[in-house]
């Protein structure tokens, strides 16, 4: 256990220090990412204004708060891409990973978690600029702030597990593009990334309640921006834990099965 902790701290430190070296590269990446929520924000504030002030319970200021916090949660959602498995297999990276005494999932979780530390630091000025430009309405309680800070890491873990699971398909076929795109489209619509679920038709909201996506996206945003009742605020963390265990278990199971398919390339 101590060893594992040391491994995590070391890996995270390496990632954070490395990524802070590439500030310009990270900023290009993050600014490119900001365009997406700005489109949504402008479109939905325009509609809210035309609808007499609000859509799905969100005013223009509410949407501004939602989509600004969105940018941080989106960054927390960046994990090892399922497209990356093809590269790992083709380049023989995987052979090296299999030789280590620690499960490769730990390596990914730790590395990207360290990167997040750098991302959060780099994100603060972006959030400040967006807040000046779009004037969000936000007044969280201390309790909401605490839950938010736990929930963004919960979101990170849920998405890590889900995309690991998805990436495992690469062990059987490399024609995965369309399948991954389908997954990302479902995620876009059902997670709250496109719009808060309250804007969606009721049957979509119903559907998303049974899926993990919103716990990795909308829930952390709502925890900070929305007015969730106290019990729902804390219950959300429980739902996150549940999905981490379910998706993580499935990912580990799929991994054991997938590795049996693997015959080394290069090394």
């Amino acid at each position, binding site marked *: 256990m101590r060893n594992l902790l040391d491994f995590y701290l070391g890996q995270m430190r390496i990632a954070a220090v490395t990524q802070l070296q590439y500030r310009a590269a990270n900023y290009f990446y993050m*600014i*490119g990412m900001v*365009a997406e929520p700005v*489109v949504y924000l*402008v479109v939905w504030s325009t*509609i809210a204004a035309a609808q007499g002030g609000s859509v799905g319970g969100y005013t223009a200021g509410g949407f501004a708060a939602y989509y600004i916090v969105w940018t941080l949660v989106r960054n927390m959602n960046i994990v090892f891409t399922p497209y990356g498995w093809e590269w790992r297999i083709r380049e023989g990276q995987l052979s090296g990973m299999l030789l280590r005494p620690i499960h490769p999932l730990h390596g990914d979780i730790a590395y990207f978690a360290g990167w997040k530390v750098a991302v959060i630091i780099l994100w603060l000025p972006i959030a400040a600029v967006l807040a000046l430009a779009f004037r969000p309405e936000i007044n969280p309680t201390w309790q909401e702030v605490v839950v938010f800070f736990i929930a963004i890491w919960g979101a990170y873990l849920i998405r890590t597990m889900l995309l690991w699971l998805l990436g495992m398909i690469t062990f059987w076929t490399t*024609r995965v593009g*369309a399948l991954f795109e389908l997954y990302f*489209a479902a995620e876009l619509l059902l997670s709250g990334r496109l719009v808060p679920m309250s804007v969606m038709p009721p049957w979509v909201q119903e559907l998303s309640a049974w899926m993990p996506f919103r716990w990795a996206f909308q829930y952390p945003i709502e925890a900070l921006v929305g007015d969730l009742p106290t019990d729902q605020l804390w219950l959300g963390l429980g739902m996150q834990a549940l999905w981490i265990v379910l998706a993580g278990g499935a990912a580990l199971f799929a991994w054991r099965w997938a590795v049996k398919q693997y015959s080394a390339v290069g090394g």
Partner: protein
Amino acid sequence: MNVIRLWLNFVRVGVLGEIQYRVNFLVQLLQSAIALATALIVLALIFSYTQTLGGWTGPELLALMGVHTLVGGLIHMSIQPNMERLMQDVQNGTLDYALIKPADSQALVSVREFRLWQGVDVIVGALVIGYAVYQLREIFGWQQALAFAAALGCGAAMIYAFWLILTTGAFWFVRMENLLELWQGLYSAGRAPVGIYPDWLKYGLTFLVPVAFAVTVPAEAVTGRLTLETLAGAIALAAALLVGARWFWFFGLRRYSGASA
């Protein structure tokens, strides 16, 4: 004329290379279908709340979406692969091989790659525009068709010039891959008519990054709201950017010192 012959030759080689991988066509078709379905769902959601968005009706915004898809297809088919290869060549010093060929260097680096299957988006975009035009047939005539062709040509020229200027920056900065991410983000802003953005963003998307000219202006032509002044401005700006990009290319080339230096 030489440039066109050169381009056609590279297109032929590119096509021959890609038709060996026919399943990739299916994969691309599925991906385009997923992207189209997602975009239509978004439009349906928007228009379930409102009749117009920033003065654009449903069919008009559909035309805009079609233009966005079509231009995106053109970029992925031809402009972006060439510029990516140029960036790599500058990094690795392999640009030498292009420079020693007896052809105009700018023309050569701009035509070497051609991704046939990415062209699926061009067709999908054209079909969407066609459907939107059918719905807008009351206001769509040959003037609109002509204006659309002109505006689309200008937009494509501007995006090419813009990419070439950015990529030429590789002679100084070497590592430019993240520009791709930045570009993709900014281009996605073109999915909404630029008129609904706050001023600073509207002017940024018009003059800093020519997304407005590439997507909104051709869509304005389809929907009959393009003024002659805007079209004239687009033509002038496209010409200026092309000339500027050419000058900057040769200016940057002087910094290039080759593989062995």
